[in-house]
């Protein structure tokens, strides 16, 4: 579904900050990939390259066979099929929950207003927040905001969902409700790439765990391999700190 070839990313005026140093990776349809690693290792940058929120410096990314790193690619059309959830939710504060969810599908003519409203309501029922349809983001708790952010991305019927530390900005008691929504999504067969520090979630949901360190994927494997029998010294030392 997503093919990444020799991805490199540099930041800075003269590209002096080398953040991603050659990543080759494939994410298959229906697969749940969890990305772990120390802060600053390039996890967010990697994820954000997948929908071109960051433009790669070198390498290619293919989405369903289409090269999205080709300048001729219509990236807006591709992004409609890639949902993204951010650490800080990024709900639109001037819009109601309903408007937050339906803005993109309606403006992008994926659905009529009625269809979008109906779909949004069904999704809100699914996460148990139908009564918040006409509320504004400021009135919600962090956990509720993040669940709405997930629903907002889902309303576009994406083929894959990217999560960048979706629970890191939450109070501890709200982490569970967000992870539950993500687990449901995983069970429903969604293709997912998740950057997280929630190792329990990784063990339970991941088909594959990628350990990133200093801009490369230093080690990868099943949750069992990574958590119970890590080969790389860096992985071992990272896990000893977080587990």
């Amino acid at each position, binding site marked *: 579904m997503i093919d990444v070839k020799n991805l490199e990313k540099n930041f800075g005026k003269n590209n002096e900050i080398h953040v991603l140093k050659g990543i080759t990776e494939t994410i298959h349809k229906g697969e749940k990939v969890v990305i772990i690693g120390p802060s600053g290792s390039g996890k967010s940058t990697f994820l954000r390259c997948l*929908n071109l*929120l960051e433009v790669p410096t070198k390498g290619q990314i293919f989405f369903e066979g289409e090269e999205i790193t080709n300048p001729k690619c219509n990236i*807006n*059309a*591709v*992004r*409609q*099929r*890639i*949902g*993204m959830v*951010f650490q*800080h939710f*990024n*709900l*639109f*504060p*001037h819009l109601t929950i309903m408007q937050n969810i339906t*803005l*993109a599908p309606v*403006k*992008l003519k994926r659905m009529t207003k009625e269809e979008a409203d109906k779909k949004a309501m069904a999704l809100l029922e699914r996460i148990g927040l139908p009564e918040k349809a006409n509320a*504004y983001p*400021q*009135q919600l708790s962090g956990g509720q905001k993040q669940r709405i*952010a997930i629903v*907002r*991305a889902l309303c*576009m019927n994406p083929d894959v969902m990217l999560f960048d530390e979706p629970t890191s900005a939450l109070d501890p008691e709200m982490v569970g409700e967000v992870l539950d929504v993500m687990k449901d999504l995983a069970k429903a067969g969604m293709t997912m790439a998740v950057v997280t520090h929630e190792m329990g979630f990784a063990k339970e949901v991941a088909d594959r765990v990628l350990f990133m360190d200093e801009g490369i994927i230093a080690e990868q494997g099943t949750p069992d391999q990574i958590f119970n029998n890590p080969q790389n010294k860096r992985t071992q030392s990272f896990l000893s700190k977080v587990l």
Partner: protein
Amino acid sequence: MTWFNAWLERLYQTFIVADRYSVLIDGFKNTLIITFGAFLIGLFIGTVVAMIKVFADGNPKLKILDVLCNIYITVIRGTPVVVQLLIFFFIIFVSAKNGIPVAILTFGINSGAYLAETIRSGIMAIDKGQTEAGRSLGLSRMQTMTQIILPQAIKNILPAIGNEAIALLKETSVAGYVAVVDLTKAGNQIKNTTYDNINPILLIALVYLALVMIMSWLLGILERRLRKSDRR
């Protein structure tokens, strides 16, 4: 109370005789028309210029437009509005008979340069995450700007926009330099025909003051409403 009666008589001579107050009413209307029209034009130009400047950041294709916008802002902010008025009326629109459309255009172009900077800073103050959320959903740059960023930016800078409208109202008082009879010019004309050097000038000062106070009051109501919607 003889001085009071004398003053009333003076007012009567100055404003009522020969229906001279009608000049003031026309001038008042023209001031409102020029201010309102110029404000709309300024808001439009300011928004477009602000958007170009924001989009040009990191997009070399818009470099030329960005340079043109910078020249526009520098020239407009670097010359007095009266001079701009003279240029528009006597150099660019030489054959214009009616000064009002020229005045609306001039003040609009002038106000646009100031509003552009205000609006641009309003746009820049919106969290980058808002743009990223919009773009990640597949919305274009333009859709993200008009649907997500601008509504929030305008709301935040409403006080500054209101102040620009108030400044604009007062600035239109130089419209009389070209063939426009605005409120100030009307007062001046009455002063010249009646040799009453005091009352016409004090009257128009009071009218400007009242207008500004009304605008501030309306702005206050608007701001309080918006703030309430934040607390909802």
